[in-house]
Every structure is written in C-alpha cells, then in structure tokens.
C-alpha cells in the first residue's frame, strides 16, 4: 500500500465517472462525474432534491449507483466496497450517536468497531480537540445538535479516514460553531484528507472548499475553483443554473 501512495493515481482520492442513479423511471443522478485529490475540498451546492445526499451516499459506498464507475483511493469502490471503507468517514444528517451512551462511551464503541486504538487517553484527547472533554461522561441524549456533530467529528479524528463526506454540516450551528467547524475541516485537509461538503450554506461551504460544484437536476452544472468565484458571482450563477432563468432575473 505504501508504494501505491507515491503514485499519482493514489493521490486521486475520488474518481467518479458517469454516475447515474434512478428510482424507477426517475433519475436522481444523471451522469455525474467528478475527481478530487488528497488535501482538496469540494463544496456541493444545489436546491433540495437535486441528488446531493444520494451522491454522498454513493461515494460513501452506502448506495450502489444504477450505472457508472467509482474509484476511491485508487480502488474500485463498486466492486470492492469493503476495501475502501476504512478510508471513508461520513457525517450525515444522523450523527451515529447512541443517545444512552456517554460521549466517551460512544467514542470507545466506534473506535473498536473501526479497529482503532481505544485507549482512554486517546479518546480523551479527541474529545478535548472538539471541546467536549468537560461533558465526556454525560449521556449524548442531553447534547444539542451542535454537540452531537462535534462528537461525530471526534470519531473522525480517531479514525484513519482520508475522505470525509459531510451532509449539511453547518445546519443548526451558531457563528462560533461554524467558525470552529470551518477550522476543523481546514485542518483535516491540511493533514492530506479529501473533503466533500454538501450544503446550502454558501459562505461557510465555500470557505472550506478548493472547488465549488453546483448540482441541479441530477447533473453537475458548474465545477470551478473556489478562488475564481466571488460571493456575488456564485449567487448569480447558482440562481441562473440551479434555480432557473426566472429566479435569476
């Protein structure tokens, strides 16, 4: 595996080609292709029901596409999902938190399930990083949505994920929480991790992205470097491409 790490193909964390997903006759994704390298962040924008969550679930190997190909960290994720799952972590609408376990117990569970070291000091350090160390022994049932998201991110810290998929991570967070999450995601990228964030939050989403893509009608209608897009440009393009010409005008 270490030899492969040096090859350019391995640096490409996500390589999706012509992904299509239909439920009955209705296509949810209609030929989505994207590439993402290690240490890069992609923010996916798009109206509700355009397939953002479906795309994330396919990239996470939780859902099989109807057609298309997908390679994660160089391996064929459709033929060998088990081979790539150790490299993927996801923070979706649910936070994978067991309500009747404490923060520390939740981390211990997921660490052992993931085959990682579950030493008390390591778990405590992860809780410190997400600023939950003072409530380590409190049941998750008493946590706010933001605290549960932090707990989910502590789980990410303990794992060996190189691809992190986040679905609406900024929802329900206050300004301080958004700033903290933005810094967390930037540090994940700085460690060489690849990041895909599906969000409706333009500012926060673009802040952690190297590239911004807009998904509309099951297709990627725009994929550009974030540096090329000012806030006004992005909103205008979003209105034109995702909401239709009437909204744009």
């Amino acid at each position, binding site marked *: 595996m270490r030899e492969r790490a040096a090859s350019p193909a391995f640096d490409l964390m996500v390589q999706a080609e012509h992904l299509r997903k239909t439920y009955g006759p209705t296509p949810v994704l209609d030929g989505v292709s994207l590439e993402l390298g290690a240490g890069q962040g992609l923010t996916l924008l798009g109206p509700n029901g355009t397939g953002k969550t479906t795309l994330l679930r396919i990239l*996470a*190997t*939780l859902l099989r596409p109807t057609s298309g190909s997908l390679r994660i960290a160089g391996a064929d994720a459709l033929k060998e999902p*088990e081979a790539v*799952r*150790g490299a*993927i*972590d*996801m923070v*979706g*609408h*649910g*936070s*994978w*938190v*067991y*309500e*009747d*376990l404490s923060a520390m*117990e939740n981390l*211990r*569970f*997921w660490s*052992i*399930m*993931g*085959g990682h070291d579950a030493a008390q000091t390591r778990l405590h350090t992860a809780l410190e990083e997400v600023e939950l160390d003072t409530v380590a022994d409190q*049941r998750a049932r008493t946590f706010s949505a933001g605290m*549960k998201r932090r707990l989910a991110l502590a789980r990410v810290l303990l794992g060996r994920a190189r691809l992190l998929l986040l679905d609406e991570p900024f929802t329900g967070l206050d300004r301080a929480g958004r700033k903290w999450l933005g810094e967390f995601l930037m540090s994940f990228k700085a460690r060489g991790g690849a990041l895909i964030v599906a969000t409706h939050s333009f500012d926060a989403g673009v802040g952690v992205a190297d590239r911004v893509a807009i998904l509309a009608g099951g297709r990627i209608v725009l994929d550009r470097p974030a540096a090329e897009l000012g806030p006004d440009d992005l909103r205008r393009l979003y209105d034109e491409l995702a909401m239709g010409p009437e909204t744009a005008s």
Partner: protein
Amino acid sequence: MRRAWIVVWKDVLSERRSKESLNALVFFSILLLFVFQFALGPERARVEAALPGLLWLGFILSGLLAFGRTFLVERENDCWEGLVLTPGDKSAIYVGKLAGNVLLMAVVEAVLLVLFAVFFGLDFTGVLPGLSLVLALGTLGLASVGTLFGAITAQMRARELLLPVLLLPAVVPILLGSVSATQTVLLGQPLAEAAAWLKLLAAADVVYLVVGLLTFEFVLEG
C-alpha cells in the same frame, strides 16, 4: 471477537440505562400470566398439561417484542450507516446482537419461570438442570432466527406485522423440539427420553446460526 463484545457491551449498557425493552417485556409477561390464569382456572391438572406450551408461548411472544427492537436503536441517528461502513467482518455485529438477545431472553425466561411458580404454585427446583439445557438450546435457536429477521424487518415499514409472519413459521422446528423436551423434563422423566428432540434442537440451532452468520452482511447492506 472484540467487535462482537463491544456490540454486546453497548446494547447491555443502553438497555440498563433506558430499561425500555426489559420493562416492557416484564410487564408483558405479567399480563400473559394473568391471561393464562383466567383461561385455565385453578385446576392443577389442566395447568400441568398445558404448562410446556404456555411457557414457550410466553417466551416466543416476549421474544417477538425483543427481536423487533434489536435493530431499531441502530436506525436512530443513522447508526446503521456507521455499522455498514465499519471495515471488516460484519458477522461480528450479528454475534454481538445475538448475544444481547440471548441475555435479554434469559432474563425474561427467569422472570416468567418465577411468575409461573408464584401464579400456579409450581416448583421447578427439581427439574432446573434439565430445564436449563432445554431453555438454552431453544433460546439460542429462537434468538438466532429472531436476530436475523429483526435486522431484515427493521428496514421495512410494516415491520411489526412482518416480523411474526416471517419468524413464526421459521421457528416451528425449535418450538416443536422445545415444547416436547420441556414436557419430558417437567414430567420428571430422564433427559435421555427427550434425546431425539434435543438433537433436533441442537441441529436447528447450528443451521440457524450458520445461516445468520453467512447472510447477515447482505441484510445489513440492504
């Protein structure tokens, strides 16, 4: 093994704190006993004749409630997705869930036996070793199928309806063997008299356990 153990630890700890399943099952057991008491009346001979069937009726009805809840906790906060994404052999999750169900069933069976003894004035102490063996074999078989079908139906809308419809026909060999072997034990006959039923139970346990281990990954993946 470590992953199976942590699943049991998590389920037992959650149940110890919430007591959701245990409270419901104990209350349900008491209700069942009241129904049996009214149905059979005070005549001891009728109670003793019906006892093996009543015991296992109580166990399986309680089991249906327990198995149905096993995987519902994994749907909360999308924990199910986390289990799918954990790398490695998924049968460890099945083994952990199965062990949790066997433990829960064992507690409910102990409570039901005590309640039967109190309600009907019965004494199980003389037959306890033989009865324990039959209960262990029967419970393992029931829980093996129940855990698997609990996982299958947890993803469906009509799960409360589907679980008994799927489970009850599948556990007919377990029920036949368990009720017959329990009858032999309660009549005070030597365990060797029930050897054929015990062999059927052991064979059914092995078959159901192997099927559960081999198919659980596909069930989890949906």
